[in-house]
């Protein structure tokens, strides 16, 4: 289970230590993490959102999780060293106590030393939140913090040692489901609002899931997990495969999501579909042919600006044609620019290619921003008033409609990728990725094959750019930053290199989640980073790896 893997990474770096010292060490590390979490302002930002309405804010859950994991880890260590469960739980409580002590010290420092002048996040609001709403300065609140730390650590320890494996699994899953349901209140609330009888208001409050529905949900998940395990059905995670059910669910969600949720969610879905489109393009380059392309955004820009110039009502328009005419033009232009740019850069390999394409992406961004091209491309003013696509007399205006446009394109691109992958050219790409010299000795022209991959990938990016232009209704240079290329790259890595469903899952996780958590401001990038690091430790092959990668990872 992933949980164990996280804790095991602590294990790798340390020598065998006495369990007590180890518990203290883990507790202090966790405590420092908790203090940092508060002092960078994450606590206050995340406190605005409840997981369980009126009971636990997201910030509180995160802090509690730190103490729980500290307890879990130290108890598991003690257990391995042959300590009795009771002692293990005590040690876990000690670790939790250390976390509480760190926080208590921080509270004391905040109230007495006035560190706020240096650390703006050390605010009275933080102290109030940490001391359970009591007024500052009492010794009772310090005691409360310590007790809470000890209790949470002990609970974590009990989970690791006293609770049988099967129940532990079920409880952890139940907790995650409840957090998930609370965190994505907007999505589920808007889905529930389709149901009659005010069910939505019964389940969700204004900030999170209500207490009783949360308890019911938790109980249901736990019961379901235990019953399934008792029935002897191996879970999908354990067999390493995906059940048909999960695929059907995924497809169904993708198809109907924007219809049953709010406009905001539909807009997020639209963005996810857009990145999916780009992800499929980069998948051809990186996933199949192994070309590390950091300048992918360049072709996205080519597609967007082509449509902008052809479909705008603004002063810079060079034509006023429909989107359906502009789209193929954008795709072809992007493909051609892929060919033109590819010729010089594709003769270099590996890291050098990454650098060369990185430069390329920047060149395009600087060009569209430049004064020299401003009369044509609008410079930093961009191009505005781009017409929406019209289909059978209906203008595609709503996020949901544009979502389906992007989704259909993504589907077409996925289909093309899939067909190419199982043909002569796709096998050539894979061969080049695996061993370029050997591929060449078998008669494959590496430069020509890579050029095709680069160009096809560019064409797909151009299609994404075209949709982006009509989605936003305007294009500006700042939309085409390096971050876009890196996002697409991360989608592939997280989803699983060379895997088409991986692109879908990766786009949902990396684009969808941060958008849905937008109110957490800059802190979502913190989680983004933590998630990426954790991912590389736990599932380096990606969330939904390509068949061959899965087989080889399972073997390793």
């Amino acid at each position, binding site marked *: 289970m992933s949980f164990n893997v996280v804790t095991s990474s602590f294990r790798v770096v340390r020598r065998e230590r006495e369990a007590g010292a180890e518990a203290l060490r883990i507790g202090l590390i966790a405590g420092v993490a908790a203090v940092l979490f508060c002092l960078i302002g994450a606590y206050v930002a995340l406190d605005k959102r409840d997981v369980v309405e009126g009971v636990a804010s997201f910030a509180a859950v995160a802090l509690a999780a730190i103490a729980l994991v500290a307890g879990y880890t130290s108890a598991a260590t003690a257990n391995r060293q042959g300590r009795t469960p009771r002692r293990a739980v005590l040690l876990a409580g000690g670790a939790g106590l250390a976390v509480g002590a760190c926080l208590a010290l921080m509270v004391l420092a905040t109230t007495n030393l006035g560190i706020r002048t240096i650390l703006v996040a050390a605010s009275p609001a933080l102290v109030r939140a940490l001391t359970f709403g009591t007024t500052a300065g009492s010794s009772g609140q310090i005691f409360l913090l310590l007790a809470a730390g000890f209790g949470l650590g002990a609970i974590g320890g009990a989970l690791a040692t006293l609770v049988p494996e099967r129940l532990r699994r079920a409880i952890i899953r139940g907790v995650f489901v409840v957090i998930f349901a609370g965190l994505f209140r907007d999505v589920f609330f808007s889905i529930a609002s389709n149901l009659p009888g005010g069910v939505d208001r019964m389940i969700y409050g204004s900030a999170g899931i209500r207490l009783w529905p949360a308890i019911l949900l938790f109980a249901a998940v736990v019961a379901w997990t235990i019953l399934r395990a008792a029935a002897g059905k191996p879970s999908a995670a354990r067999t390493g495969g995906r059940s048909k059910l999960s695929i059907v669910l995924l497809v169904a969600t993708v198809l109907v999501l924007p219809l049953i949720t709010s406009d905001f969610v539909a807009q997020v879905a639209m963005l996810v579909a857009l990145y999916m489109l780009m992800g499929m393009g980069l998948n051809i380059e990186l996933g199949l042919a192994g070309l590390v392309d950091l300048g992918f955004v360049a072709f996205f820009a080519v597609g967007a600006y082509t449509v902008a110039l052809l479909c705008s009502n603004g002063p810079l328009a060079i034509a006023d044609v429909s989107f359906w005419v502009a789209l193929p033009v954008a795709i072809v232009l992007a493909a051609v620019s892929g060919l033109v740019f590819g010729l010089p850069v594709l003769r270099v390999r590996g890291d050098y290619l990454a650098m060369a394409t990185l430069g390329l992406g920047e060149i395009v961004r600087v060009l569209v921003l430049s004064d020299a091209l401003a009369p044509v491309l609008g410079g930093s003013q961009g191009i505005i008033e781009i017409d929406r696509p019209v289909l059978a007399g209906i203008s595609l205006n709503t996020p949901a409609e544009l979502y389906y446009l992007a989704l259909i394109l993504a589907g077409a691109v996925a*289909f*093309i990728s899939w*067909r*190419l992958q*199982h*043909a*002569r*050219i*796709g*096998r*050539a790409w*894979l*061969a080049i990725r*695996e*061993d370029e*010299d*050997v*591929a*060449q*000795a*078998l*008669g*494959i*022209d*590496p430069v020509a094959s890579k050029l*095709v991959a680069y160009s096809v990938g560019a064409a797909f990016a151009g299609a994404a750019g075209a949709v982006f232009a009509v989605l936003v209704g305007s294009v500006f240079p700042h939309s085409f930053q390096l971050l876009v290329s890196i996002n697409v790259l991360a989608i592939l890595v997280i989803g699983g290199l060379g895997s088409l469903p991986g692109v879908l899952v990766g786009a949902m996780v990396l684009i969808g989640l941060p958008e849905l958590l937008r109110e957490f401001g800059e802190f979502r990038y913190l989680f983004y980073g933590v998630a990426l690091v954790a991912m590389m430790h736990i599932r380096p092959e990606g969330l939904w790896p390509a068949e*061959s*990668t899965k*087989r*080889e990872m399972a*073997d390793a």
Partner: protein
Amino acid sequence: MPETSLPPPSSAAAPLLEVRGLSKRFGGVAAIRDVDLTVAPGSVHAVIGPNGAGKTSVFNCISSFVQPTSGTIRLDGERIDGLPAHVVARHGVARTYQNVRLFPGMTGLENVLVGAHRTLSVPGWQAVFATPRFRREEAAAREKAMAILEFAGVAHHAGTLARHLAYGDQRRLEIARAVVAGPKLLLLDEPAAGMNPAEGAGLVELIRRIRAELGITVVLIEHHMRVVMAIADRITVIDRGAVLAEGTPAEIQADDSVIAAYLGTRRDTPAEAAAEDASDAGAGAKTGMKAVRA
């Protein structure tokens, strides 16, 4: 009867591969110096010599992995030196590698299909629409690939990832991948390395069938003297980057300079030494060579 009307003996026929004055320097070090190699069509030609003698460098030059410093390489009378590796492959030169180099993340069948790359011609856009022409070609390619896997004795591994194959099967799959496109010339770099005597015998059989049934000319680098003596029509001995001797297996066995290079300067019973060497498994010969080099 005038001699010209006789069917020419194979050694006198126009050579399939003709290497003249081949040299390769890496910086100041000469890997090979002035190597000549003539291979008759339909023959099995062995290249032997101590480790580090430059045998693989000769292969690398022929397959254009590296560009020779000087010299010419002709295939069927046509210059192939200086061409890019994939063009040389299209002229009909295929090879295997001393350390097996399969595409580890691809299945046995996929590996062989990549080998068939140069025989396929339907463009990618037809694959997208799965046109009848694409389907026909793809089906034929798969059939051919399966037949070659069968030929090489690894058909049961068509769906296995290459990295999961046993070592001997990897060697066989690599050979299957090399011959599926029907090359004129097959370069085998130590195909029997790491094989036990039984596997070595199976390999000898496979090479015989490659020549007999597929009509492919074979040049092989090999240390196992048993394998070399069993299948080679002619042998070229390379030592320290230069050709030491060339001839039939019998001639090579009797050649004093070869015996000296292989077994040191023990000249008292050269015939015995050669016979012993020939009957010995490769390991013995290799030890002998290493002793000389050391």
